[in-house]
């Protein structure tokens, strides 16, 4: 980050190479449109380039901050007027990823980031969740919905949605901790 603050274009390119696909993947998951996801990705990286001081190292890892900015920017884009109706017809979380224009990069290990192992672990953990818990979490995180909005969308009581999110997140954390310790998957 110091090199970015010093306007080092080489450092910025290295940072882009390291995180661009991750940022693009999150944006695409939220907005479901490759062109819009590219716009979001560009905005996020140029924001980092122009205002690197917005990242406060005391608040945690850079990648976490970058992903948080990406998610917020993507949600804003998702709520855009021109795309609102289309997305309300097919909200995030209901696609379950299988309709997204994605490209798994397992055929190109040389370009995999250091986060690839964690990605695999997270996917395993997500697969362990009951579908209703996974859906509630995805609608909130990728769809930008509040618990009440999730409840309205699913036609479920608010308390049920709160429980699904809380239990789902606890279960996912537990599964990730098990995998980090090399223990059995639940």
């Amino acid at each position, binding site marked *: 980050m110091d090199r970015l603050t010093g306007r080092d274009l080489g450092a910025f390119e290295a940072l882009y190479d390291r995180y661009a696909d991750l940022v693009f993947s999150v944006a695409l998951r939220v907005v479901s449109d490759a062109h819009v996801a590219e716009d979001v990705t560009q905005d996020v990286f140029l924001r980092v380039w122009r205002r690197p001081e917005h990242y406060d190292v005391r*608040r945690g890892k850079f990648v976490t901050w970058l992903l948080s900015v990406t*998610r917020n920017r993507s949600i804003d884009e998702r709520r855009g007027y021109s795309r609102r109706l289309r997305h309300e017809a097919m909200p995030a979380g209901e696609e379950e990823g299988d309709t997204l224009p994605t490209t798994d990069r397992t055929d190109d290990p040389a370009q995999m980031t250091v986060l690839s192992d964690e990605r695999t672990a997270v996917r395993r953990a997500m697969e362990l969740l009951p579908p209703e818990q996974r859906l509630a979490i995805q609608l909130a995180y990728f769809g930008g919905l509040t618990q009440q909005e999730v409840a309205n969308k699913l036609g479920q009581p608010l308390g049920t949605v709160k429980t699904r999110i809380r239990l789902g997140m606890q279960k996912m954390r537990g599964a990730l901790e098990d995998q980090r310790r090399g223990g059995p998957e639940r």
Partner: protein
Amino acid sequence: MRPLDCAGTRDDIDAYAIGALDAEEARALEGHMAACATCARLVEEARAEATLALSLSAPAASSSPALKARVMASAAVLRELPVPRTRQARWWYAGAAGLVAAIASVSAWAIFTQVRVDRLDRRNAALRLDATAQSRELAAVRGDLQRAADLSAGLASTVATQNQIVDLMTEPDVRRTPLQGTAAAPAANGHYVWSPARDAGALVAAGLPQLATGEVYEMWVVYADKRWTSAGTFSPDASGTARLIVRGAPNDEAPGVLPSWFCVTLQAAGASGRSAGTMVLRSPTQ
């Protein structure tokens, strides 16, 4: 909403971590975090872990080489600008930089004019020349000085407005809503930039028809329940351009309730606050 205690906070941690609390719930939790370091640490840890894990759960996709070329080219251009701003803010910044240069010029003119005033004052006292002619010249130069001061103040105000807009555009939750001219003002266009977190917004419009005496433009925020809330009145400059900073903007009057659309109407000055004027700008229909 009653203040949260530690137990209530911990019930809501996961929902907060994935952004699923509504605005009021989030404020209550953040209020407790400000007073409880233990809960604050737990919340930050949960948020970091949830952000990383859920982001990594998104199907992996590859960005295109063309995107990289575009980003790197933009970064190279932006590096040459002296003050960091976001891409969206670049033209604002360029405009603000031009105005700062203009202020510097006007200020230099003001100083020069003041020197002339002082010199003329001394001449007037020492030489006792033609008092009437000298007074006229002195009055003219004082008029120059006043006009310089007025122009400088006007430009400073415009720069301040530009800076407020630029600051708004760098907010993480900034939203930009385009506005299009209606049949009553087909050449008009603009944007409303707003941040629910800052409780603020900024209207920037161009191509507005000039106002007749006794008329103003009024901006409106409209909610899904058809409720219209005035965001203020304004007049365009001679070129039809206008900027309106909206403080305490009705962006988020109730938790989770955001505006549906925005518009600008032409109002009789005494009729502002009532949504009865001719619509000249509006955001796209939902």
